[in-house]
């Protein structure tokens, strides 16, 4: 049984909100004395996400000490403290909004110091923010990770959280800590504690072997889900993260399947002799929108995710595909060549009121609605493939990447970052996963064991 392990994220009561103490309170060191007497009122510490030009915020993330060095299934607690700080550092750095201090500028933090930061030291380090934490092995085999965020110049605590995790999920405590810091300082939603499904690629270009794979957002905990005997394409998470919908050529019958992550079983979504592809779940998980080709015409359909009668949503000659729901489930963005070239359209979830929204030069493909609802990401084809964004009405088009072939964007859970794949040219051209934020400035390659394509970024983990 490989069910998703539940992480109990325990928000420690801020001073003065003791009634919110969780049922399983964490024994963390008492709140810092500074919180009671903030003294002057320095300007609030915050990071601009959309500015793009402002320098990343210098932040110090020293190794998290342990109260007692203990061997656990995840390793010894002092080694974990170093690794957890590394995860928080890597996550925050990858956002492009933070500039973590190099290890040489960090000081060794002793356990009692976690809640009593050496502000005199940090004030001279150049860091504006400080993240401290601790690791503790619990009697029941779980780990507790405390995470504290401080404003260095104001010498105040901004936020703290504690996480109790099973040893196998220890990395998630680091991602949760990074999410806390990111959210508190940027005002944006969290996204580091999330996973990605994608297609792992290997072999010669004419006979690529493609396998479904799943990993954490940062490439850790990588696992293959299918064996590569059949071509698999376009995996996408169910909203509850317990299954993945994708397309497979198994038995030379190209069709959409749902892969159950708990059981490893796969089931056919619709029984038809026709080719079905381009599947995505609705935000409530009740529907799967997909495309089906009949005699050269491709239209968009939806079918109850549990199985049932498909319902056709588009009915025009040509190619209608790439359906993606708005986060409230009321609308669907898709691509159609009904005008003569691939363009983006929005319709109601029942197929009514189909309106074209893309009018720039070139072709537009693979639209995906942001989980925040404010933007639609797409692939723009004008010779090269580039990743772009526009509002759901089609205004404010902005291209974020500029390479030979960037295709298939997928949104981070907070709608601020896109993952896509970049195809290289020619015989030796390989595909890799990349991410880019909405400024278009922060472009990064996502590490994968083999080549990668068709990323599907999952929701934030509970």
């Amino acid at each position, binding site marked *: 049984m490989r069910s998703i392990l539940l992480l109990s994220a325990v928000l420690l009561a801020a001073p003065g909100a003791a009634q919110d103490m969780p049922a399983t309170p964490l024994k963390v060191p008492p709140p810092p004395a500074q919180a009671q007497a903030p003294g002057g009122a320095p300007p609030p510490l915050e990071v601009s996400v959309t500015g793009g030009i402002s320098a990343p915020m210098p932040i110090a993330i020293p190794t998290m000490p342990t109260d007692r060095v203990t061997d656990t299934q995840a390793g010894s607690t002092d080694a974990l403290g170093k690794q957890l700080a590394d995860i928080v550092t890597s996550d925050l750095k990858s956002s492009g909004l933070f500039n973590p201090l190099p290890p040489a500028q960090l000081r060794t933090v002793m356990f009692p110091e976690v809640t009593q930061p050496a502000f005199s030291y940090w004030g001279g380090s150049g860091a504006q923010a400080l993240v401290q934490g601790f690791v503790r092995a619990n009697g029941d085999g779980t780990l507790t990770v405390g995470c504290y965020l401080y404003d260095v110049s104001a010498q105040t605590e901004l936020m703290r959280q504690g996480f109790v995790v099973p040893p196998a999920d220890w990395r998630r405590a680091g991602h949760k800590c990074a999410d806390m810091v990111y959210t508190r300082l940027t005002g944006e939603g969290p996204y580091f504690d999330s996973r990605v499904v994608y297609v792992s690629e290997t072999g010669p*270009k*004419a006979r690529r072997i493609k396998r479904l794979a799943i990993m954490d957002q940062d490439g850790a905990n990588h696992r293959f889900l299918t064996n590569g005997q059949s*071509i698999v394409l376009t995996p996408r998470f169910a909203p509850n993260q317990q299954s993945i919908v994708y397309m497979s050529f198994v038995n030379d019958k190209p069709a959409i399947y749902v892969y159950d992550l708990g059981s490893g079983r796969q089931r056919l979504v619709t029984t038809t002799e026709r080719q079905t592809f381009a599947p995505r779940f609705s935000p409530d998980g009740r529907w799967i929108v997909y495309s089906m080709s009949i005699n*050269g015409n491709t239209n968009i359909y939806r079918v109850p995710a549990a199985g049932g009668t498909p319902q056709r949503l588009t009915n025009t000659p040509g190619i209608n*595909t790439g359906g993606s729901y708005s986060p409230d489930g009321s609308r669907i963005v898709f691509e159609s060549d009904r005008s003569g070239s691939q363009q983006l359209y929005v319709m109601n979830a029942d197929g009514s009121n189909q309106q074209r929204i893309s009018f720039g030069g070139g072709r537009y493909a693979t639209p995906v609605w942001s989980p925040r609802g404010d933007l639609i990401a797409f692939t723009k*084809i004008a010779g090269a493939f580039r990743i772009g964004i526009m509002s759901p009405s089609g205004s404010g088009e902005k291209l974020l990447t500029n390479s030979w072939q960037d*295709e298939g964007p997928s949104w981070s859970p907070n709608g601020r970052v896109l993952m896509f794949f970049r195809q290289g040219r*020619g015989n030796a051209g390989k595909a890799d996963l990349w991410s880019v934020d909405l400024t278009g400035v922060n472009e990064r390659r996502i590490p994968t064991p083999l080549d990668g394509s068709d990323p599907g970024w999952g929701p934030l983990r509970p």
Partner: protein
Amino acid sequence: MPRLTTSLLLAGALVATAACSKKHPEQLPPAPGPAPEQTQPTGPSGPVGDAVVPGSSADFKRSVTSDTVHFGLDQYDIDDTARAILDTQVAWLNRYPNVRVTIEGHCDERGTREYNLALGDRRANAAKNYLAGRGVDASRINTISYGKERPIALGSDEESWAANRRAVTVVLSQ
């Protein structure tokens, strides 16, 4: 003697592929019965003259101008060149009315993945419709689109792209 060996190998290969295809879910049309002209090739008294079994995939490839027709960029119309090729396929298919084929639609790498799955389906169906229009029973023709997943030319240049925009007629073993 070498010729006989070839013939036996071919017969063995046919048996092997037939056994494989049994594992796949069958099509709705009735399973192909033993066609009269198909009964002999497995025996040594078959047409060992050139080691090609009539009605077989090898026979098809030898008899038609090409098993492949090509398309323009983002196009799926059957042009004169394609028509001439498909006409030779029609003639052969009319000679072997029990033979079934799959037409594979393919695209070059300059379209997005899902669009290309749809475009490949268009191309396969354009070829299918042409064959059917010339009297080949449409129920004998399956289509499948591979989009841009199975290129035969591996470059990122005009020549390779042109080679990859194609519909390929594949004879199914009986």
